[in-house]
């Protein structure tokens, strides 16, 4: 990368930044027993932003010869926006971050990756009732240079690899689907020796065939770490992304800092700086240092996730959460690793406290719109008189964020993180998005069946 050439191209006036990136993505995908796709994608491109008028003009390009054209177009766009926005609160960072990891996936041959995948695929497919399996090994490496006309010059490598399975079991007309993931970080060795987890998931997927369909209604529930993580990501995390609040005064009022959202034991944190999770990174894609951010502290709204634009507009500190899927997209505010912090309750105590409820396990995707969220889970155990009983299937949850947060009664004493990232927003699916939680107990949760 010719840093000097890029630096010289930046506009002097206003705010102007440039992100150039080499992007590579390796994927090995299979259906049932066959590994039918091996793809090694490589792309290069840049993304320039200019703020000389009332808002950002941005331009993405793939041909380096278009750099000056891109900057010119971005300036024209910014000047077309009525008003004059000025960024005053920004960091100037100069750094070069390289990936270092125990076992670098880029040094493992495609052949060895396939052998590993085939081993797990065989375990799954040797169970008669497993009728379909979608498998994927993914590995994404980016080398990104982030420059701006205030002096920031950050070059950062980012690496993530993992394996995901979508497992379908079938008996008669009934099918059940579960998911299993490994990795979600830089270290290939985390993908090895997972036979036991594969067997357990296969058995669980088959056992769900004998589970009863859930009866829709309101239940007291315990969410395992995976489901709690999805809950906090979907229901609350997205509302903490401050770009939603820009130009939306009513929402900014709804999300006023200091408002009580939950019980005093409830703490939510987003922390990209912890090592080894899908949403771990050093700098965001505007070159701001990633910061551990308390979103809810002692039950009160205490912070939010920012880009430069949202932090400046709201007169708060940039938290380093503006990220883009790749050079083809503008950075928008995204969660890093969001989690509900642990408290004091054991899982046993939470289960014992419920007479008639459900213990939900395994997330299966969700969505949020405003203050309403919905998500699917892989299955649940019935809880009767404080004891775990048989499994139920076909569950989807829905609720109103503010009511549900206030209904959280107990928080577990151990945090677990999901091994798979993945979050869609603004047309960008970001695989580097982590979530976790201690298990939580929520009273009176709406559960829909099928």
């Amino acid at each position: 990368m010719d840093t000097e050439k890029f630096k010289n191209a930046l506009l002097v006036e206003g705010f102007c930044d440039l992100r150039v990136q080499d992007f590579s993505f390796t994927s090995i995908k299979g259906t049932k027993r066959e590994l039918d796709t091996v793809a090694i994608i490589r792309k290069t491109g840049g993304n320039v932003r200019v703020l000389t008028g009332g808002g950002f003009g941005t331009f993405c390009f793939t041909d380096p010869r278009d750099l000056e054209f891109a900057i010119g177009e971005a300036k024209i766009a910014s000047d077309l926006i009525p008003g004059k926005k000025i960024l005053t609160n920004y960091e100037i960072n100069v750094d070069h971050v390289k990936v270092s990891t125990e076992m670098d996936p880029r040094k493992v041959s495609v052949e060895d990756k396939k052998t590993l995948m085939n081993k797990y695929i065989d375990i799954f497919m040797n169970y008669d009732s497993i009728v379909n399996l979608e498998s994927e090994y993914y590995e994404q490496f980016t080398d990104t240079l982030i420059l701006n006309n205030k002096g920031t010059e950050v070059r950062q490598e980012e690496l993530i690899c993992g394996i995901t399975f979508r497992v379908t079991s079938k008996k008669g007309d009934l099918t059940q689907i579960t998911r299993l993931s490994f990795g979600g970080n830089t270290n290939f060795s985390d993908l090895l020796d997972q036979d036991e987890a594969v067997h357990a998931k296969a058995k669980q997927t088959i056992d769900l065939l004998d589970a009863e369909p859930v009866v829709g209604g309101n239940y007291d529930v315990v969410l395992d770490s995976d489901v709690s993580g999805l809950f906090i990501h979907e229901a609350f995390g997205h509302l903490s992304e401050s770009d939603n609040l820009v130009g939306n005064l009513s929402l900014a009022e709804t999300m006023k800092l200091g408002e009580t959202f939950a019980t005093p034991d409830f703490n939510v944190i987003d922390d990209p700086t912890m090592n080894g999770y899908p949403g771990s990174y050093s700098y965001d894609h505007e070159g701001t240092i990633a910061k551990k951010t308390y979103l809810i502290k002692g039950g009160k709204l205490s912070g939010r996730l920012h880009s430069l634009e949202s932090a400046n507009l709201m007169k708060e500190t940039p938290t380093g959460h503006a990220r883009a899927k790749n050079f083809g997209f503008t950075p928008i505010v995204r969660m890093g690793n969001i989690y509900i912090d642990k408290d004091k309750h054991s899982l046993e105590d939470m289960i014992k406290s419920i007479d008639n409820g459900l213990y939900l396990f395994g997330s299966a995707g969700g969505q949020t719109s405003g203050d309403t969220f919905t998500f699917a889970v892989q299955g649940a155990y019935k809880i009767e008189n404080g004891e775990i009983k048989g499994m139920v299937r076909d569950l989807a949850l829905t609720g109103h964020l503010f009511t549900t947060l206030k209904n959280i009664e107990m928080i577990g004493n151990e945090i677990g993180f999901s091994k798979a990232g993945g979050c869609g927003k603004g047309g960008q699916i970001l695989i580097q998005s982590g979530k976790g939680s201690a298990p939580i107990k929520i009273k009176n949760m709406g559960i829909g069946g099928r």
Partner: protein
Amino acid sequence: MKTLLEKVLRVCDHAEVYSRVVFSTSVSVQSGEMQGIESEKKTEVAIRIVKGDKMGAAVATSLEDESIIERAMVSLENQKSEAVEFPNEKVKDVNCSSDVVRNMTTQQLVKLTFDVSDRLKVIASDITSGVEFIKTVKEVKMVNSSGFESEYDYTNIAVQIYTLNEQGFYSTTKEYSGSDLPLIKDEHLEKMIELHRLGNQMVTLENEKMPVVFSGNVMGSLMLRVLGGVNGGNVSKGISPVGDKLGKKLFSEKITIRDDATMPLGCNSFAFDDEGTPAQNTVIYENGVLKSFLVSCGQSKKLGMKPTGNAQKRTLFSKEIEDAPSVFDTNIIIEGHSISDEAIIGGIKRGLFITGVMGAHTGNINQGDFSMNISSGFLIENGKLVGKVKGAMIAGNIYDLFQKVEVIGSEKEVMRSIFYTMGYSPMVLFSEANIVGK
């Protein structure tokens, strides 16, 4: 392109080179203030190579990046996909671009966006709203070693209009998408505002069965599941629930579903698909009878069918270029026994009009299952919308639900399939669906 094809052919028996240049600009206004303007000019290149009975693929962002050949070889040596014969059929012209859109400047786009925003303000000055215009221009070229050489231009204008409730959350939305500028009628904006104001009257439902009307836009969430069944990839892998049901009547005779890539100025019209198969108009369900699957060249051999021109180098969640083409919808068109929208709503004693759902991407999509939160739904009583439904879900399976199609409406809306638009449908009345209430 031909240079790259020649270089590629030095290492393999047959090859295909696909390239496109995408220009796009998006402009958004919220509460009368412009948020930002984003543009791109992106080159995307994909090759597929065949050697013996094996096939490989790779992508790049420049025709000069020759690492694409080496990467395609790694793919060929390691993957188990069977070689396909690259087609060389005559391509007919399809009207999928507009000079007005192609030549539109960013200034004009800004003006259009403000115009719609101002019109909404005149209709309802007390309501916060937003408008987004996205203009896309694509130049697509393709050559292969069977002698195919063709190109087409594509333009699109997508418009999203929304209102926000008092807490700042989305209340109502309306969208348009097509090759040309859409006609945004006052009555559309007035209807949005009418629905928005109904948000002040919240109603709760019990767990109940009732007639349900899906708006044209929201039909996309169900069509995603219909397509899972007729996707040639799922059929050939044996995971489609209708893989052995061609010729059977599976849906109500009141509905016909086509996939029409030749539709003039449609949101996803093109001259040929991403492996060079000419655009077609495929009837999938005719009066409820399953007539055809949607198949790519690779699947056509296995299934003994002709390719339908649905192979696209994208995924469900991304339109960035992918190595291998998968089967996707072009313009899905829903037709059938049609009456006016007013007559549909007016004829319902107690039912639900759904204009927004969440969770369309969850559950066993290919099997037709759905369990979605109704993010925007209105209770109908004695032919009138009486309030907005709070916290309800709708769950079931499309192979049950589509047997209950009573009638379809008259005004077509663009359908949404999670991130992208997928064709056009009017509102559809199902005689009964399961609603999970409070």
